[in-house]
Every structure is written in structure tokens, then in C-alpha cells.
């Protein structure tokens, strides 16, 4: 018991003040990119050519944030002259088209479905379905339950049974072998229900796009909230949930 108290004193209170106070991530973190629209077309073309995810449209000076894995190659190649990553972690959007990013993102709170806010704004229960992917998206979703983020203080919980859930939170590119399990889980959630896609895999197949072993999520379920990243930072997820349901 003494040890318990000693350790507790040493460890202290660690829950972050976000969203009341802003959080600054380390400057190395690659969050929302900034696009220089006046960049030399040749540099932009070179980045588009090299992008492993074919996420860059050089002519339109646009990045598909659904495909982008935030690998940083375009920033390195253009030495920051075309694309430069900022530490801004607020990336969630409410429509697939809004992922085609030209330098600014629409206000998520203004675009979320109003009835979801009313229904789930005070209490939101989600069933997470891990469907392929590399498990980093799952890990950084799980982290929201640690004391630092303490998700439940916002009335949001990840629950075990889809029957207790208000929606599904999908990570991964949906392998053929997980399709039925995902659809069954979705079916078991009582309507009205929300679908959240988290991570490049769920948004576009991510690194695995083109594999015949995966079935794109958008062909299976109507997605309401898109959270880009590979994986999205826990704060990206938290910010998206708070804005979409409580904003």
C-alpha cells in the first residue's frame, strides 16, 4: 500500500488539458501539410512522380489525404518548397471529396450531420472493427483510453458489443476475410448508426491499395467521418470525434 501511494505521488496527475488548452506536438511530427501553390511546376511534378501513394495531383497542386500516408518524401524532395508538413493534427473531414486537399480543410463541426450531434453529442458508444491494416491505427485509438487522453471524460467509449454501440469505427483496408465480420457487426448496431473510417487504409486501401485480397470500405458502408493519417495521431482522432459530435 505504501508503495502504491509513493508511486502515485511520483507519477502525479497526467491527463492533458486538451481541448481546453492547445497541445503542441514535437516539430518533427508530420501533421497537416502546407502546399505552396506557387511552386515551380517541375518540382511539383517530381513530387507527384515519386509519391509512393500516387496521392499528389501536380497540376491542381492537390494531395488526396485519403491516400497520403504522411511519409514525408514530398517534403524532402521539394525541400519544403512544394509541400511542408506542419504539426497541426486536426485533419478529420465529413465528406470524401473534402479529402482532396488544396491547402485548407473545411470546418468539420459545420459539416457534421446535425442529427448525430443531437443523438450522440452527450454520449457516444463505438464498436471498433479492426479490418486488416497494420494495427497501428488500432493502437493509437486504444491509447485514447490511457490517462493522458482519458476519452471517457468526454462521454465517448469503445464498447464490446455492437448492440450497445451507436456506430462502427473501422480501421484497416478490409481484407476479403474480414468483410462478413465487418458487415455482421454493422448489422448488429441499432439504427441510426454512424460509420467512422480511421486511417489511410480504411480511407483508400492505404499501403495495400490494389491488392485483390481487400474490399474497399466505401463499397461496403456509408462513411460519415473520415480521419486521415497513417496512423492518425490520437489527438487527430480525438479532435475529429469532438468536433463531429460535439462541435
Amino acid at each position, binding site marked *: 500500500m505504501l*508503495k*502504491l501511494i509513493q*508511486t*502515485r505521488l*511520483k*507519477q502525479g496527475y*497526467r491527463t492533458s488539458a486538451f481541448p481546453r488548452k492547445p497541445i503542441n*506536438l*514535437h516539430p*518533427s*511530427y*508530420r501533421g497537416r501539410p502546407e502546399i505552396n501553390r506557387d511552386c515551380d511546376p517541375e518540382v511539383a511534378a517530381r513530387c507527384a512522380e*515519386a*509519391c509512393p*501513394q500516387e496521392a499528389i495531383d501536380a497540376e491542381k497542386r492537390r494531395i488526396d489525404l485519403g491516400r497520403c*500516408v*504522411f*511519409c*514525408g*518524401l514530398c517534403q*524532402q524532395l521539394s525541400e519544403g518548397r512544394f509541400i511542408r*508538413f506542419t504539426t497541426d493534427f486536426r485533419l478529420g473531414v465529413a465528406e470524401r471529396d473534402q479529402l482532396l486537399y488544396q491547402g485548407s480543410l473545411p470546418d468539420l463541426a459545420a459539416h457534421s450531420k446535425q442529427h448525430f450531434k443531437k443523438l450522440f453529442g452527450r454520449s457516444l458508444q463505438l*464498436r*471498433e472493427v*479492426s*479490418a*486488416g*491494416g*497494420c*494495427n*497501428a491505427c*488500432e*493502437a*493509437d*485509438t*486504444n*491509447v485514447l483510453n*490511457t*490517462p*493522458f487522453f482519458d476519452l471517457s471524460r468526454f462521454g465517448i467509449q*469503445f464498447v464490446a458489443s455492437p448492440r450497445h454501440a451507436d456506430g462502427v469505427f473501422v480501421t*484497416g*483496408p478490409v*481484407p*476479403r*476475410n*474480414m468483410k*462478413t*465480420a465487418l458487415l455482421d457487426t454493422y448489422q448488429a448496431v441499432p439504427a441510426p448508426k454512424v460509420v467512422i473510417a480511421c486511417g489511410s*487504409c480504411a480511407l483508400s486501401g*492505404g*499501403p*495495400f491499395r*490494389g*491488392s*485483390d*485480397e*481487400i474490399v474497399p470500405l466505401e463499397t461496403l458502408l456509408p462513411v460519415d467521418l473520415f480521419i486521415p493519417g*497513417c496512423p492518425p*495521431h490520437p489527438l487527430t482522432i480525438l479532435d475529429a470525434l469532438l468536433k463531429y459530435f460535439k462541435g
Partner: protein
Amino acid sequence: MDNFLPITNGCAIPRKELPILEFPHFRDSLLASTAANGNIVQFFGYEENGTATLLAVIRKGYDLSAAQCAMPKEFPSLTAENWKFNLFEREIAEQFGIRPLHHPWFKPVRYHANWRGAPDVFGADYQTDIPGLYDYFRVEGEHIHEVAVGPVHAGIIEPGHFRFQCFGEKVLHLEIQLGYQHRGVERLLPTLPFKRLPIVVEGIAGDTTIGNSLCFAQAVESLSSLKVPDPARVVRTIALELERLACHVGDLGALSGDVAFNPPAAYYGRLRGEFLNLLVVLAGNRFGKGLVRPGGVTKIPTPDNVALLRDKIKEVRPEIIQVADLLFSAHSVQARFEGCGRVDRATAEAVGLVGVAGRASGLDYDAREFFPTEKYKMMSPCSYNRKRGGVYSRAWVRYEEICHSLNLAEDLLGTIPEGDLPFPDPNWRLAPDSFVVTVNEPWRGELSHCLLTDAQGKILRYKVKDPSFHNWTGLALALRNQEISDFPLNNKSFNLSYCGFDL
């Protein structure tokens, strides 16, 4: 084994140097070697111009060796004589539609049609997309009951199916069926432009991003004679240790949570985050994505960031030690950890366990020591004081490795020279008709990639073997005669990868 060719970790050789044996010799050599402390690093098939071949890489002590043979349509199963071959043989059967005769337990691994369009050897039609739909081993008896769990589990966990045969609370048998995470990685990789490879490799298992990227980068570097600058080697080694620290610390917290002792779960949960944030400092990503590339690393930390890393390690070390003291001295924890889920040394050896689970059962194999890459030649080995093979040992081995790893990372941080490096040129080419195998020891255990190139220098075969491929069997065996309520604890004590296994 004299008919196998001695090879070196991470050194590409022309494929024509690999001996091609007659199947009976190939089989006999493999059986003789694995019966005498040899272990399988790789055993897989590949096809070129309509000819299919089997290739095996074996480790024995400090030596690696390889040989191949023409792939027979069917062959007397090696598993029937040595259990280490079980999953390898079933994987080959699944990928190539060939049949190991008299395999004691023949069933799909990941549940997909074979790559050659050959008649299915498992009698599945793959119209239903459920890997778990198959006849599980059943224990019969009046009081026997069956418990089925998954694929979608209660928490935020990857999918897999677990089938327990129980007598009351006691688990007589656990069968694990995976494949739900199968996204066709090995089939996809050879078809992709090279620029996509680092990204797919980082997606094999996110918690082993650095480990997989290293295996990949070392293979490419050897196949394309890329020189890696020494500071990049230092950074890669530190990154692999930070990955280990994050995972091990997180695992100790989760183990504590599984026995309902919440304080260490909370503290270690947060401390795990500290290491992920240190990976951000190195890589710009919490899992180290975007850091390791063939030819080096994308970024050398600035002196300020090196100082930040050192200070952080100094700061968290006493905290980790204090929480460990709290965890391991709590009677309620000891009561649950001690003697739970034991895999004795003989069993561990028989199924070929690797990594933390192997070392906790007394198998002193650490690829960092046996086949050192990067800066591991300078590493002094970690010592292990708990080798009884149960949950306690698996937790304690992690703790010892955490302490060892903190020292290692700290030492290495002192050797990063100032100054940036040019970032590695992403336009590399691979030597044609070559073969390379790479072995590293990320936090879970021995990870290996194997690349074969064709006459044009394209990738002919990309084989990945996650340590979990060896260790899932260990979990199934650990559960025998345990309470079913101890499953989560045992599962956590192995903490194996689903996506790394399913590929």
C-alpha cells in the same frame, strides 16, 4: 547439412550458388538438422517460368545455411517427424496447392485460394469469406463444452478466432485460426513499383515498423550494393530499441491491467506513449514510419533532439523501475503471474519458439547477438534470470530487456555525430538473379525477410516471416490445463501479431 550452403545474414549471393538438392536429400538434411538444435528461419516456395522450387534457410548456433529443391506435387510431410515444420508446410500447401502427405493436422493457414489456380488441397471453395468456418478439433464427452471467441474481439484488438475445448473452467485444448487480416502482402509486393515497397513493408505490422523496415532495407542494400553511412546505422539501431521499449513497457502495463491491478497499467500506458513520442522526434511518426529507407535513414536527429532523447531516457528510467517494483512485488500480481501458462523448455524447443517467449522458456537465442546487424556487434548481451516459461517469466524477461535496452539506447545516443546526411536516393536497382535473407530481432523476436530477384532485377519472390509464425503455437500450448479466465493474461504475455502473421 553439408549439402546446404553456408550464408551470411544480409549478404546477397547469386541464386545459382544455392545448391539444388534432390527432394529426399533436402528432406533428410532438414530433418537431421532440426532434430539436432537446428531451427527454420525460412521455408517457402516460389515459381519462375512455370518451375516451382522450395527454399529453406536454417539456423544452427551462429550459422545460417540454405538450399533448395524442385517442388514436388506431393511429398511425405516433414511435420509428421518434426513439429517445427507445421505452419511452414501448411503455408506452402496453401500458396502452391501441393500436398504434404500424412501431415498430422492439415488445414488452411490464412484461408485463400492458392496462387497457381491448382485444385484446392483443403477442400475449400472460398465462396464464403470466413476463415473460421472449418471443423475444429473437438474433445468429446458429457461435460465438455466449447467456447468460441472472435474474429471481432471485445476490445480494440486485431481479429482472430479462438476455439477452446473446456472441461468446466479448465481448457483442455485451444485452437487458433487466423487469416482475417490477410491482405495479400507477399503477392502484392513483387507487382509494385519500387517506390511503394517501403510503405507496404511498414504496413506489415505497425508495432514492428522499424523491424520490418530494417529487414527490407538491409536486403535492398545488399542487392544493390548501397553503402549505409555509420550515423544512419546508429539511428536505426536506436529506433529499433525505442520500438522495443515502447512495446515492452506497454505490454507490462497491459499485463497488469489483465490482473486488474490498475496503477501500473495506467503508468506504463503513459510511459509507453513517451517512447512513441521519442519515435516522433526521430521519425516524425509515432510508429517510426518514414524513417528507415534503403541506404540509411531520412533524418539524423539534431544535437538538440539527441539531447532531448537522452534527457527523456534519464527521466523515465527511474519511473519504469519504480513501477516495476510495484508490479512485481504485489502479491495479487504474483498470485496470478506465477506458474500460469507454462511452456517448458523442451516444448519450447520442440515447436521452435523465438524471442521473448523463447527466452522466457530458457532458449537463449537473440538474433541481435547471434546474427548482429546495424550496430549490434557492440552490444553486450542481455542476461535473463527467469526461465520457467510462464507468464511471470515472460513479463520478467521483458523487464530485463527494457533495462538492457535503455542502456543500449543511451550509449548509442552518445555516438551520433553532428551534421545531417543527404537523404537516401529512392531510385535503387536490384542485382538480377540474386538471393538474400535478412534476420533481425525486433521486440517480439526473430524477424526475417527473404528476397529473390529475376533475370531483370525485378522481385521474383518476397517472403516475410514474423516471429509470431513460430509463437502462436506456443500460446495454444501454454493454455493447456489452464483456467479459461487466464486466457487474456496468457495472450498478453505472448502479445503476438495477427497482421504480421496474416500478411
